[in-house]
């Protein structure tokens, strides 16, 4: 099927070249980082994780796009999703690859990355995250590829695939849960020390993943002969609505516990992101943007009239994606370190090379996504004709 990705219109090649160029710039910046060390980023002794780990955290969520179509289709026999399970799975694959790339980009000694495998440490959550992420990647490649190949030959998918498809559903839950555990089990970090971290990760993932999937489905319909289907998009819209509502609700629960109990180690972080602390407030405009965007998204999504309008639904999905990106792809990680464990406010902002490396990895993700989507859609078009 890979041959389908080797032929295409000028637009297709143009997109790939643009993405390759961004990857190239990111790659060059990574060479500088390789040479100089992670000191090239804005990270510091106090804020020791930054943009990279935040992107990783956010993209684990985006990978949820797959389970949100697989579950209704395979467990509830919801037929409208049959056409687009492959689109969900082919978002999950580049998302997880980006996650792994961001972790590698963040390592001080990337050549030693395999030490995690050579010295397996069962008490480390990072070890388990390595297992669940790679497992999820493998599952989605296997399932997506085989389902598509059978579809092309107009035969049902091989029988051995069924158990793997069912396995991929709880496995999807595990990637968000284990990633949340990286944060939620650390004794001295009040911002993260909350049992609702994993539910929050699940809720925001089930909003961000399908939101991106809706946008991609609309793009696919616009630029190709394959129509993912109005019903499928509307149902995804409802999923985003529920998940975003639950996600906002969970954040409100967090705010209640923190501000009503008024325990300083927990509250100071929230003071910092919403109002600034000791005269420092770099994250304040970001956090409030996220809040405003979340409210706006909920207004557009909860109202059936606006949600049923595909153009407005698309706008709502963009808003959901950015609101959650700010919250999870930046603030959640950075604010955990501010104030530091010694009560100091030392701010963080990413540097230019750090941002370019980040964009390079995103471009790599979209490069893989484009190729996978190209293959899937060519097959779909072939069947249709």
């Amino acid at each position, binding site marked *: 099927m890979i041959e389908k990705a080797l032929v295409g219109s000028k637009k297709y090649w143009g997109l790939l070249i643009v993405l390759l160029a961004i990857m190239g710039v990111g790659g060059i910046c990574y060479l500088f980082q390789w040479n100089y060390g992670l000191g090239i980023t804005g990270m510091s*002794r106090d804020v020791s994780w930054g943009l990279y780990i935040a992107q990783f955290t956010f993209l684990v969520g985006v990978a949820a796009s797959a389970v949100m179509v697989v579950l209704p289709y395979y467990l509830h026999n919801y037929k409208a999703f049959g056409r687009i399970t492959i689109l969900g799975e082919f978002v999950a694959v580049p998302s997880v690859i980006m996650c792994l790339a961001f972790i590698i980009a963040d390592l*001080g000694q990337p050549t030693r990355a395999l*030490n995690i495998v050579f010295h397996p440490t069962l008490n480390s959550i990072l070890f388990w995250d390595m297992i669940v992420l790679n497992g999820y990647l493998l599952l989605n490649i296997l399932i997506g590829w085989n389902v598509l190949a059978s579809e092309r030959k107009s035969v049902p998918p091989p029988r051995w695939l069924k158990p793997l498809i069912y396995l991929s559903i709880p496995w999807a839950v595990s990637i968000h849960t284990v990633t949340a555990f990286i944060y939620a089990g650390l004794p001295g*970090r009040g911002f993260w020390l909350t049992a609702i971290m994993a539910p929050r990760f699940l809720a925001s993932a089930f909003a961000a993943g399908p939101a991106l999937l809706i946008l991609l489905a609309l793009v696919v319909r616009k630029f190709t002969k394959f129509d993912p289907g109005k019903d499928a998009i509307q149902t995804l819209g409802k999923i985003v609505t529920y998940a975003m509502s639950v996600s906002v609700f969970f954040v409100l629960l967090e705010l209640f516990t923190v501000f009503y109990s008024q325990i300083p180690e927990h509250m100071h972080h929230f003071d910092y992101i919403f109002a600034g602390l000791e005269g420092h407030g770099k994250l304040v405009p970001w956090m409030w943007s996220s809040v405003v965007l979340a409210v706006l998204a909920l207004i557009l999504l909860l109202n059936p009239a606006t949600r049923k309008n595909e153009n407005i639904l698309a706008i709502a999905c963009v808003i959901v994606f950015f609101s959650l990106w700010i919250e999870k792809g930046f603030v959640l990680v950075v604010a955990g370190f501010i104030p530091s464990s010694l009560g100091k406010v030392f701010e963080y902002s990413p540097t230019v090379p750090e941002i370019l490396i980040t964009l390079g990895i995103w471009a790599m993700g979209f490069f893989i996504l484009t190729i996978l989507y190209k293959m899937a859609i060519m097959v779909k078009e072939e069947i249709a004709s």
Partner: protein
Amino acid sequence: MKIDRRDFLKIGGLGALGIAAKPVINVLSKGESAEASHGGGAVGGKRLAMVVDLKKCKEGCTDCIDACHKAHNVPDFHNPKDEVKWLWNEPYEKAFPEQEHEWVGGGMKGGPVMVLCNHCDNPPCVRVCPTKATFRREDGIVMMDYHRCIGCRFCMAACPYGSRSFNWRNPRGCDASGNTFIEKQNPGFPTRTTGVVEKCNFCAERLAKGLIPACAEACKENAIVFGDLEEADSEVREVLHSNYTIRRKPGLGTRPQIYYIV
């Protein structure tokens, strides 16, 4: 006893099985020994600890810090972002946030508190490390393997005391004007590479030679006492017995092994 060919193979096979099973048994028994040390009696009968007498500590004095950083080739990058430190002073309020209030007396308010790795009995950094690059020795020292560390910095997120530093850039290098980050290298201790985490090692390399930690040796006021808690007549036990001491963030259950006389 006569051993025929069949018996020999049986015994050999069992032996091989035993060797194969050893890592598994090691992993299982490790959990147990960690459990046993909860009660206090660490394996090997040694539990190293430090008592710092803040009443003796002189404001403005940095003898212990200088001695430590010289002995361990701790680089100075001249900026707070890339800072590496093993031992340093924090104001009382930052070191003991739970014990801070408006009327703190006894000269403690704002006063310097020498802080370092607490060599916790229950160290979160060891719990999170994905490669066992940071580990707890049987005598209680929490150590770093600079050659195994992948630089993921999970341990830095996990340490509630901010005791860990990362080499954001090459500590063996020099700045734009050619000044090396390590002012004068001590050939007796390894320098580190870019991209690994480091912290106080309780002077494990000096203990191996029968010396006390460099900070304790350098302190002219004798404010730092170091020794084995398992030894009933050791100086640390005596000092802990005759003085009221506190520890940093005891509520987190890390069981720090640096005690402070305030």
